[in-house]
């Protein structure tokens, strides 16, 4: 049995990494994860360490990407900013996936009034652009890392609810589900033992791609001043700070943006690769 499982995993990874682009994407994501985890060992400076005699310097051998207006090393702030982005991205998506999956399961399985009411609430949330919904919720929950995770999580719930709803609707009348009902299985058992495991693949794909989008949303909120509180390092906040210093040190504003782009690209392509590996019928066209 173990041998069989190992074989299946090997087959899965071979299919996942059959495309070079997915290998590149996975490498990018791994690079940023390593940078975030080992940040204290990769740089001699702290993220809040100021050197007021070296303010807004251009790239030098001591500061590879220069310093900001408080004399903090830009490269160090980028490495620690990776921690902020990854932490918020992963936790927010986890919140959204759990809440959205549960809501989608319930509305898809029970249908009727429950489905109708939930669908209208989801439509309502999707009619407000998610960034604006996140901004309005930030007004309520405040601006700290925990609140930001909740805010971004809630604003992404509709996507998972809709997907799960569609998945459940497609299999809830399947023969094996009917057989379980005839055998006397309760609704909770049917939902979590039979329906949920068979609906998870698209959720996993969406989850991976969504981490990238959530990182993008977090950086947008930080750029607008509604993200993590300073002096916590965040890429969006660095772009915002750097905008006023473009002529002095453009790297300060441009480097974090490149990091955002590469990390989001990595997660998106990884999500596409997972989709192809989990269901070859949905093979993408990248």
């Amino acid at each position, binding site marked *: 049995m173990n041998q069989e499982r190992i074989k299946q995993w090997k087959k899965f990874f071979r299919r996942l990494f059959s495309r070079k682009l997915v290998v590149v994407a996975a490498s990018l994501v791994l690079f940023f994860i390593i940078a975030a985890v080992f940040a204290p060992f990769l740089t001699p400076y702290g993220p809040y360490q100021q050197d007021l005699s070296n303010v807004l310097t251009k790239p030098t051998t001591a500061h590879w990407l220069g310093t900001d207006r408080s004399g903090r090393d830009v490269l160090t702030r980028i490495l620690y900013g990776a921690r902020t982005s990854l932490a918020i991205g992963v936790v927010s998506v986890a919140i959204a996936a759990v809440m959205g999956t549960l809501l989608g399961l319930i509305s898809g399985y029970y249908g009727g009034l429950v489905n109708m009411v939930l669908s209208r609430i989801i439509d309502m949330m999707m009619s*407000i652009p998610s960034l604006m919904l996140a901004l309005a919720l930030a007004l309520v929950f405040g601006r700290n890392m925990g609140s930001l995770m909740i805010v971004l999580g809630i604003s992404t719930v509709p996507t998972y609810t809709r997907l799960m709803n569609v998945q459940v609707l497609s299999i809830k009348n399947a023969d094996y589900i009917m057989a379980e009902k005839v055998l006397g299985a309760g609704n909770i058992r049917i939902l979590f033992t039979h329906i949920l495991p068979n609906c998870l693949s698209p959720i996993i794909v969406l989850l991976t791609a969504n981490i990238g989008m959530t990182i993008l949303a977090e950086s947008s909120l930080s750029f607008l001043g509604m993200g993590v509180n300073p002096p916590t390092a965040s890429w969006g906040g660095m*772009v915002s700070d750097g905008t006023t210093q473009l*002529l002095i040190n453009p790297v300060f504003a*441009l480097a974090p943006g490149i990091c955002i782009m590469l990390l989001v690209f990595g997660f998106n392509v990884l999500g596409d690769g997972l989709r192809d590996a989990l269901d070859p019928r949905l093979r993408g066209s*990248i």
Partner: protein
Amino acid sequence: MSKYILKRIGQSLAVLFLVSVFAFILLYMVPGDPVYAMLGGDITREQYDIAYREMGLDRSVMVRYFGWLFRFVTGDWGKSFKYAMPVVEVIGSRLPVTMFLGLISVVIGTGFGILLGTVAGKNRGKLSDSFITVCSNLGAVMPVFWLAVLGMYIFSLKLGWLPSHGFSFASEPWLMVRQAVLPVISLSVGQICITTRQMRSGMLEVIRQDYIRTARAKGLKESQVVYRHAIRNAVLPVVTLTGMSIRNVVAGAVSIEQVFAIAGMGSLLMNGILSKDVAVVQACIMIIAIVVVLSTLIVDISYGILDPRIRIK
């Protein structure tokens, strides 16, 4: 078809009703006293008592909600304490700016997206396809605000070709056009990339169909096959995307207006949130939701017109 339209209108109204409930309860979800949240902290006791009664805080929630909804529908959107004027006047001066820049971005984004997607789909596997695909994948993940900053750095600060800030209908026409270039390009790049990917995917699907083979077998020129048959069928999903793009453009406008210091709806919403000017935030959410719901409704109805199979269903 009329049944379908009526059903969609009914659903849209239901959605807007729920948005109004969300916008209304936002005032009471904000930490602190709702009177101070509405008017700011710098008011006297008498002003507080007057506002308390005017806001109907001495009445039940249902009475307050329907009173607020009635006032909103009849054009009384409250008063902004930050701008010291009726919210309807504040929004009236800013909404056209965002709509103008947004609509141009959507048109440019959709147009170029269809063109590039067609080229990529028609030349699958060739250099042009690879180049367009890689660029569109990168462009789709580019932060809008970063692209705006990059554009400002290159074209305004370094080359001096375009202004770095501001856009106003009161500017002289040529200046207005130059002021619009960077914001519009920043907003439309994401749309171009998403539309390109969708159009390419659609073209690849359509070009394999039997009717395309038949058209070629009939002796039609390749350009006729592509333009008369392939594009018309591949472009249908792009119509749905265009409806969704309104949402993305409105969201992007928040960042763009901050970068280029444009007095539009995005910057108004940001200022309202930062200063906790709840009347402004409520009105902005409602207006934005109305715009998004209306555009989605138009797209859904036009999809039914463009694709006869939807009508028959």
